[in-house]
């Protein structure tokens, strides 16, 4: 039981961490609330499904292509639809909702609504204290940790990362210091969508692929971001594992837990917000006018 909870919490926590960090990155840099973020994750999953099942190619090739294609698509969508309305916060909100719905409908038309699955990269499992741990789960977890480490190095140790962080801190001043604000935003959007696609790529063998698979992670992802503090990468990381473990605990310990996992995770978020309205690691922003 305890091992089950541990594994399930770690896996879903890692998935939420990747999604939430991407979401919080583009919010921090450009103040864009991208509701379509998890829709890109869904697209990547379908992309992999198409390449491995329909074209019969190697899953690793499929993953790389999926991440590249979806990132490209994300940038195109950003240029066409989000950039022109960026100054209107409400318009961006429903614009991205409409984008997500449009992507869902296109997938529904192309692949129909039936549930699909993708075979795992490595089959088999090893027993750990009497619980089966699939190699695929282990692989997913390792890939997530490596990605997070790479992202941390990118943001903290490189010049580009410095530009991204300073734009997030203060757009105008960063612009005055010679950072090309619109290029930094493009790069942040690319990293953000790329992270969503990567999440899709590593999680897809463990998940059920359907056009509606973006809804559930979307809500928990938003909860994670709010819990950790908007724009705070460390906060998203810790918040994601809190949510993941809250879900796992509910599913394994409470009867009918599967219905209640979302609600309990969200209640945790609300309780934390009651004590700290700016999230765990959020900075209480000066009022932005």
């Amino acid at each position, binding site marked *: 039981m305890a091992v089950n909870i541990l594994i399930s919490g770690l896996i879903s926590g890692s998935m939420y961490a990747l999604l939430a960090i991407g979401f919080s990155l583009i919010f921090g840099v450009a103040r864009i609330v991208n509701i379509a973020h998890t829709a890109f994750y869904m697209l990547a999953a379908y992309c992999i499904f198409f390449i491995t099942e329909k074209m019969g190619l190697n899953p690793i090739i499929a993953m790389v292509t999926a991440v590249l294609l979806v990132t490209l698509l994300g940038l195109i969508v950003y240029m066409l639809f989000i950039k*022109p309305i960026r100054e209107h916060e409400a318009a961006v909100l*429903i614009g991205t909702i409409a984008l997500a719905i*449009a992507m869902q*409908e296109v997938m529904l038309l192309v692949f129909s609504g039936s549930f699909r699955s993708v075979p795992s990269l490595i089959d088999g499992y090893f027993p750990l204290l009497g619980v089966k741990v699939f190699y695929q789960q282990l692989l997913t977890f390792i890939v997530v940790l490596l990605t997070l480490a790479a992202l941390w190095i990118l943001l903290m140790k490189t010049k580009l990362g410095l530009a991204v962080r300073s734009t997030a801190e203060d757009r105008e001043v960063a612009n005055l210091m010679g950072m090309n604000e619109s290029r930094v935003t493009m790069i942040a959007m690319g990293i953000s969508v790329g992270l969503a696609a990567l999440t899709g790529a590593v999680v897809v063998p463990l998940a059920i692929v359907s056009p509606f698979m973006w809804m559930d992670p979307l809500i928990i992802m938003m909860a994670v971001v709010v819990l950790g503090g908007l724009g705070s990468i460390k906060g998203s990381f810790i918040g994601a594992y809190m949510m993941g473990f809250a879900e796992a605990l509910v599913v394994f310990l409470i009867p009918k837990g599967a219905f209640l*996992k979302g609600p309990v995770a969200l209640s945790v978020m609300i309780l934390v*917000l009651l004590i700290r309205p700016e999230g765990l690691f959020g900075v209480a922003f000066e009022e932005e006018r």
Partner: protein
Amino acid sequence: MGPFGFYLRKLYSIFRGEILVLPSRVAVLLFFLLILLFPVISTDPYLLRIMILTNIFAILAASWDLLSGFTGQLNFGHALFFGVGAYTAALLNLHFHIPPWGSIPLGALGAVLTGLIIGIPCLRLRGTYLALTTLAFPIILLGIVYALPDVTGGELGISGFARLSNSHIANYYITGLLMLGLCTLMWKITDSNTGIIFHAIREDELAVRTAGINTTRYKLLAFCLSGFFAGIAGGLYAHFMRIAGPSTLEVSMSFTVVIWGVFGGLATIYGPVAAVFILFPMLEFLQFWSQYRTLMFAAIILLILLYMPEGLIPWIRDKIEKECPRCKLRNAAVRKTCRACTASLD
């Protein structure tokens, strides 16, 4: 003729001077007439059903605007009020046999209570934090609904309670008149002193507090008012459809309300109402194209937003009306000079 003729002439001159001068007021008049006379044009049950649902959702969209458009408290979980209204009305009618005219207002009171309960934690948050937090509440309630199937009927919802009335036309007039009445009331509220404070809170909350106004109380009031109107819409929906199910609480429901509100234009009340009257029937009539329906819906919203990010109705209004640069009075766009102060309009 005597006094009677005098009042008649006076009425006519008011009518001409106050309503016919502005295209937007003529449009509102025509809209009222259309709602009141719709059964004369057609009594087709299918059309009436679409109109009834449109009326109900118009109340819902306007109530969202009252909270989110005016006070700027972006609510992403408006389905909560709608669902609570629907479930409360349904349960009261089923177990205590309270007729619809009693159960719908009581359902709305239930929604006011939830507005109070969620308002208190939400008041400490603002902006995007608030939007993302409010999204959580309907989902929490949905989980409770699924976990207690004995009370709430689980996935199937509650059914088998009284219908709104026995004929389609009576249903139509109940919802239509309520829609006109409640939306006018909401518009009046936003035009009153309270509404001005709501507006000011959105623009600059700090300045409002500095002026000695208890903004917390006003924000809570906005939550309650919005909850009340949305609860009425929920009760009407439950009694008309004769089912109160989980679909009233779903995320897509909340998103749809936001889409209506922003599409029509924030902080206008008439904008979201018009948006519902455009988008909802359009979605129904695209039925024959059912596969591409939702895709078309999303595409239309994206295109409209690209060209008019302020929303459709304010954009149209700016095209057909001009504001006088000197006295700020609105004039029809065809006029060269202001109708009150004769200043040149260009």
